[in-house]
């Protein structure tokens, strides 16, 4: 497994397939036109059925008043115009952005810090600690939500118990929307550390030892070694983690459902919950599709910005 990512191979990865002389290569290409088509056929069918078709259908629905049954009535851009004046939509959008803005840096910093600790030469007991950091990975988002709801319960939770024991007064983790969102950020960070940490650990291991040793001989402090050598070399992984956590945060749903149901009230309803609610609870598929299209557009913009920064690692 580790052989996969030795630096030499890593540099080969993005390059073209090795050229073995013009003649055989050309013949090879002509011969093997059907085989790759067979290999990708299943994926193509699934892609068309469950990605292209829903995408196109969603766009179509967004211009109709479709309610899940009956006929489609085209109503032009009415859904979108209604969206512009929809306070609930803005609130969901704003909360989603706020959540993303808080969660992404938190996920990034924490998982990188944990990865650095777990690859540190000096720390003891790393293999047991690694299992501990992996535990949250085993929990489903629903169970994660339940765990943190249990911990941050207003009247019965452990956190408030400790706070009152220390002489403070109970904190309104569930009735204050902003605090409620904060709990979601903490829970989300805790839950996603394992996966991101794994990405960082693999990347840190790929940094040639000699770089760090040379810097150490030259008298660089641990902090200098981290910020001047490790961090820049981790840039591709950092971009990947940021992209993934951004998309993950924008479509957060299950954990919040179990943690506070988007509450108090609908204050912490994020976009996917808003789509779920309008589309499936109020059966307004046309309108929900319009919201979907807006969210989709936002994600495309996020991904495009990301890829401008890091075209190579995203495509290779």
């Amino acid at each position: 497994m580790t052989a996969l990512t030795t630096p030499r191979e890593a540099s080969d990865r993005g390059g073209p397939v090795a050229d073995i002389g013009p003649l055989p290569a050309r013949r090879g290409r002509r011969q093997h036109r059907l085989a790759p088509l067979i290999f990708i056929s299943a994926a193509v069918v699934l892609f068309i059925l469950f990605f292209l078709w829903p995408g196109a259908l969603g766009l179509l629905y967004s211009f109709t008043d479709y309610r899940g049954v009956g006929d489609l009535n085209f109503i032009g851009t009415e859904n979108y115009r209604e969206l512009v004046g929809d306070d609930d939509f803005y609130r969901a959008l704003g909360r989603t952005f706020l959540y993303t803005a808080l969660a992404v840096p938190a996920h990034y910093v924490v998982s990188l810090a944990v990865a650095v600790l777990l690859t540190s030469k000096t720390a003891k007991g790393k293999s047991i600690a690694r299992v501990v950091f992996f535990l949250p990975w085993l929990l489903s988002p629903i169970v994660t939500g339940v765990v943190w709801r249990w911990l941050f319960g207003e009247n019965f939770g452990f956190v408030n118990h400790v706070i009152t024991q220390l002489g403070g007064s109970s904190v309104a983790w569930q009735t204050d929307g902003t605090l409620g969102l904060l709990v979601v950020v903490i829970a989300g960070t805790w839950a996603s550390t394992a996966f991101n940490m794994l990405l960082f650990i693999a990347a840190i291991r790929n940094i040639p030892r000699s770089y760090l040793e040379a810097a150490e001989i030259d008298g660089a402090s641990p902090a200098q070694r981290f910020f001047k050598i490790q961090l820049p070399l981790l840039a591709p992984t950092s971009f990947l983690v940021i992209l993934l956590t951004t998309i993950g945060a924008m479509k957060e749903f299950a954990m919040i459902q179990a943690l506070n149901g988007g509450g108090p009230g609908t204050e912490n309803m994020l976009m996917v919950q808003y789509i779920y609610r309008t589309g499936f609870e109020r059966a307004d598929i046309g309108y929900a599709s319009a919201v979907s299209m807006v969210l989709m557009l936002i994600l495309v913009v996020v991904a495009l910005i990301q890829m401008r920064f890091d075209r190579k690692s995203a495509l290779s």
Partner: protein
Amino acid sequence: MRNVRSIPTTIVLWVVAALYLFPVAWFLLSSFKPGSELFSLPLSILPENWTVSGYSTAWSRFDFQLYFLNTTIVAVVTTVLTVIVSAATGYAFAKYKAWWLRIFFICILATTMLPTEVIMPSSFAVVRDLGLYDTLAGIIVPSIITATGIFMFRQYFSTVPDELMEAARIDGVGEIGLFLRIMLPLAKPMMVVLAIFSFQWRWNDYIWPLLILRDPDRYTLQVALRSIVGADNIDWSVLLSASVISLIPMIILFAIFQRQIMSADINSGLKD
């Protein structure tokens, strides 16, 4: 010298690890408390009277066997199909060159940016029109294709030397045979890693099963769990125990495949 230097990092590591462990430990210990003790102040970390009554109530009130069975079917079938489709597609991306492969690769890349959650209403309509509503197949089939798996295999196969393929071709091995008999066995470690990850994703899936399943007899574990959480008056002692029960298969999986999971190189992989 070495020992002294290791003290600060070791302490930091263990403080952070303890913070990570605590939520689960508190949760687990609470599940062994009798209902009366759950909310009695002052809270104590260890249960005063250990009991499994929460577990027995949860087990008798919910049809865990059924939920386990449904979730296992979904997770296993999806995983097998995901591994096959990802290996074949990733192999084609890594070892063949054609303009349409390039275009399809960009299409697959796009799926990572536009997850099903985002186009949920129309995805639901498609699955319904295909006649898969309220069936386990309706959960399985749309989940087979994952960009993560395809990228993992693409990266893996691109490290296999082309000379190996040329040699096999000269020996008269056909393209399909080359893939099935030479390349696929080579990729076994990657197949194991993707299988573990895929199983975990499907075991924990929530939103899609929630949309597709209506008949409680077909509920998967997460949907069933959520029905306890969503109740007006949460019976915490049952909920804690039921949640713990739902984790057991993942814990067993982790215990068996710990080494593969920990050393998994998912650098080019994407979360799904």
